[in-house]
């Protein structure tokens, strides 16, 4: 029984992180309809950035977070410039172009950081007891949970509590109507990319402390983001959190029951099932 509680808690912690990964993708896709297949690669890039900063500065790994938060929105804005120039069919072209970008980033990271597996490893591991449960959390798991939830809550707050959020949600629900309502859709798209870039920036350092960095690791993160986005419907922060938790718990369970090697199959199979059995796809759902 204890072991299942442990799986559940680490699944929730991992799942919150997955929600963070999906949030950036969902925001960018929702507002601009750009399918960013390089999403995972950007997160890995941010992770390498954090790793390099941690290695060379000797500071606590958490200091790399502000650095990534500053740099990654820049990268995302560059991507926005690229994507905005695409012609119809926009979705398919954005998919193919970002596929090319993913390829480019993977190989650039291979060149810069080699194929070795890398991880930001703190010297000492602190454990925390979860009150009322026979479960321990590592400091890393706790930070993962807290920061991911904080970021999700922040995005939810922006979307639902500010004027900007109103404009973002309008663009997510119906671009055409937003345009007619006098919202500058191009500007809003830029803001979505910038916000998405910040979420990518935050996800990178957390990734580097949780999972091994590897130039080819981005694809899995991209698939995760897409599965959760389709599951939740665009723009729904609550749905994304629920999707992240479900996936996190499902993966932890699969890893425990079947073995760690089968974990990767979970998100791929879920994505295929969602696509095949939910033919209306992503776009229709917009209940924020």
């Amino acid at each position, binding site marked *: 029984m204890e072991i299942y509680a442990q799986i559940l808690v680490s699944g929730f912690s991992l799942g919150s992180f997955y929600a963070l990964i999906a949030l950036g993708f969902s925001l960018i896709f929702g507002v601009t309809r750009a399918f960013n297949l390089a999403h995972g690669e950007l997160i890995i890039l941010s992770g390498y950035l954090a790793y390099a900063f941690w290695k060379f500065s000797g500071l606590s790994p958490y200091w790399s977070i502000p650095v990534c938060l500053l740099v990654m929105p820049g990268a995302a804005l560059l991507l926005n410039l690229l994507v905005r120039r695409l012609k119809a069919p926009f979705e398919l072209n954005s998919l193919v172009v970002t596929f090319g970008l993913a390829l480019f980033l*993977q190989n650039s990271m291979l060149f810069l950081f080699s194929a070795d597996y890398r991880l930001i490893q703190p010297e000492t591991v602190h454990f925390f007891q979860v009150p009322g449960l026979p479960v321990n959390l590592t400091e890393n798991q706790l930070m993962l949970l807290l920061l991911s939830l904080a970021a999700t809550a922040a995005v939810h707050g922006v979307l639902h509590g500010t004027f900007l959020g109103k404009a973002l949600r309008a663009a997510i629900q119906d671009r055409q109507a937003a345009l007619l309502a006098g919202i500058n859709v191009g500007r809003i798209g830029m803001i979505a990319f910038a916000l998405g870039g910040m979420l990518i920036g935050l996800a990178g350092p957390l990734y580097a402390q949780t999972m091994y960095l590897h130039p080819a690791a981005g694809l899995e993160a991209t698939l995760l983001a897409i599965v959760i986005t389709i599951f939740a419907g665009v723009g729904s922060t609550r749905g994304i959190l629920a999707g992240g938790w479900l996936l996190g718990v499902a993966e932890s369970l699969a890893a425990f029951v079947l*073995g760690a090697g089968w974990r990767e199959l979970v998100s791929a199979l879920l994505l295929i099932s969602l696509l095949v059995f939910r*033919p209306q796809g992503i776009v229709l759902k917009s209940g924020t």
Partner: protein
Amino acid sequence: MLSKIKLTAITAVAAVVGLAVWPLVFGEADFYYQIFGMACFYGVLAIAWNIYALSGAISLGHAAFFGLGAYGSALLCHYGQWSPVITIPLGAATGAAFGVLWGVFFRNLRGVYLGLATLASVEIPKVIIDNWGSVTFGSLGIVGIASLPDLSLFGLEIPFGHSLKAQYYLLLLFLALAGLIHYSSLFSRWGWALRAIRENETAAVMAGVDIFRRRFEALILSSYLTGLCGALYAHLIGLIEPALVFNLHISALPLVLSIFGGRFALLGPVLGALILYPLDQLVLQPRLPTGHEAVYGLVLIMTIFFFPKGVATWLLKPRPAVWK
């Protein structure tokens, strides 16, 4: 006056002759045999990908067929102790079998959603082979796969197993055959059905085209040909592992080569392979031993922005005149 289709055919024949004759002029050059042999190989892979794309489907997951073809043949060879001559065409059928699954499950997916589903589907055979170590040797892969047998024909020994020159000619022949298949995928009645489906599915079905059947046929042909490439690869290289043959690059390369060369031109995919692969191997690889494949990503991005119809449209008009 020459019709465009004749011009294309003449160019194709001239290219094949050119590729066949240069070794006679320049003598022994193993390095170049290998590079141009692989360029031909990737040309076939690009054609295979493009046959499915001609029906309007952009696949991001052809590595699944490639890897299954490679494993199918290598395992048959290992357990059955059969000659690669038999296991290659049989192993490739594993790829086609996975193509059948795509055809059934992805029947109603189009565009972006089909792309995503194909991308994710590569994980299935990869993870299974990775974890089913007792049969597939798991993530360590298979080493020492039997090389191609030597052939003796009319008293002539053709050492496919160890001569790069012989392998080069084999791959060139393979490319020429794939080129013929590509030709009929563009210009036959069947090819026009694919084009009709690609341009407007509703109109195609109302004109009497059996869209599911034709697209399915294109998929099976495409997956079998990709499986053949994978199987051949296993025996040419002698070693495979899941991370190698189910790699994202294997899915990406034919897509990049075809789009860069020109998806709707007979020679497009081949042109892409014959330009980009040697460029990559001769110019970039020596300077950037790791990461040189980034160029394929860059080329793809540039192509979509600056010449989405590919380079072949500059050389030869894509629209063939099939009637007088």
